[in-house]
């Protein structure tokens, strides 16, 4: 086994990466913008844009699995009388009134 040979001039033809060029070249890594730069070179983090992953409690006791048994057929929901079916706001409102309105 031999070590990788150095590229020398062939490097000029390759695409720039984040590690190349001392300054002046920025290439992101698809993580998104998390704040804004200050004119003094700093950065103010916008915490509403920062991702937070919340683990649901009692995950080990959770009984549902990613798959449903094939013995149960997929059924279509009945949305008679609603113009947009499951996406109609009247459905949502009616259900709220029925289940929750009198609280």
């Amino acid at each position, binding site marked *: 086994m031999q070590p990788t040979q150095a590229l020398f001039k062939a490097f000029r033809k390759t695409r720039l990466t984040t590690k190349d060029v001392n300054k002046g070249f920025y290439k992101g890594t698809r993580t998104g913008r998390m704040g804004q730069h200050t004119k003094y070179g700093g950065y103010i983090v916008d915490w509403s844009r920062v991702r937070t992953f*919340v*683990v*649901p409690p*009692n*995950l080990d006791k*959770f*009984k*549902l*699995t*990613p*798959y*449903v*048994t*094939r*013995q*149960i*057929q*997929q*059924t*279509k*929901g*009945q*949305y*008679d009388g609603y113009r947009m079916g*499951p*996406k109609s*706001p*009247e*459905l*949502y*409102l*009616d*259900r*709220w*009134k*029925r*289940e*929750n*309105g*009198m*609280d």
Partner: protein
Amino acid sequence: MAMASSIRPSIGRILNPAATQHTANPFSFLTIFTRATTQTCSFSTTPELNERRPRRDNNRLRGLSSLYRSGPRARTNIEPHELPKPSSYKKKIEVDPNHGLWGFFYAKDKLLPTPDEIKEYGRAWSAEELRQKGWEDLHSLWWVCCKEQNRLLTAIRVWKSLGFQRRELLQDRMYENKITMKRIRHVLTERFYLWEDARALAVSDPEINLADTTRPYNPSVYYEEQSEEPVAESSGTSAEQSATEDQESAAEGQKSVTEGQQGAEGQQAGAEGQQEVEKSAAEKVEPSTSPTDTPEIQQPPPRI
């Protein structure tokens, strides 16, 4: 130096054969003089001292290697495969059986599940089934799907590294898992947009007065309630927030496999004993992929 000393005696013998040889035999004396007249070789056939050294391989253990398993140099009575093997020198590492990284594998004793085990999976959740679920259930289900995805990706990687062909089994299972996750996301976004649209609609609804936070809903027609509704845990400041919370807790009560039937009951009988229903349903619920002898056909919930 050695050359000179070795040459000298031989040369001496050649030059003065009469002096060195014992002339006991008169015939030999004569042969000396006769030999002097014929051709003589000026070199001796006796090898030099350097040539007389023992020509051997001084490396007694040449080629002998335990690393490369050359085998012994000496002849043995046993076959090569009967030779004793070196003892285990690898350190035994103790592993925590409850380590979180075990979640990346299907089994602790195997790298890969067998093809029969890979084939044992159901179908993806349908959007309709997911619409019945509340936030907590969907949140937990998403994480369960993520863990399954991790396991599948590990298995695919191991499959590839071992050089097995035909990853369709794993890829199909991965597809079902991804579909479930996509549908969860779809249902949640749909619910959010629905909430926004319903809020906009509630502005124009005569029965609802959004300015009144304690009692926004004033139905025009009152029905006789069958039972007293226990107040659900809703400490929301605005009515709509409490509405969504209660709705989700109501949806949460329908956790079991017979969700459609319970959903129908829940809607018709109101929130009566819903908390008790929630607890009993959670205890009695069966995992959705466990094979049941009597397939329960889900009834679609009758919507008014």
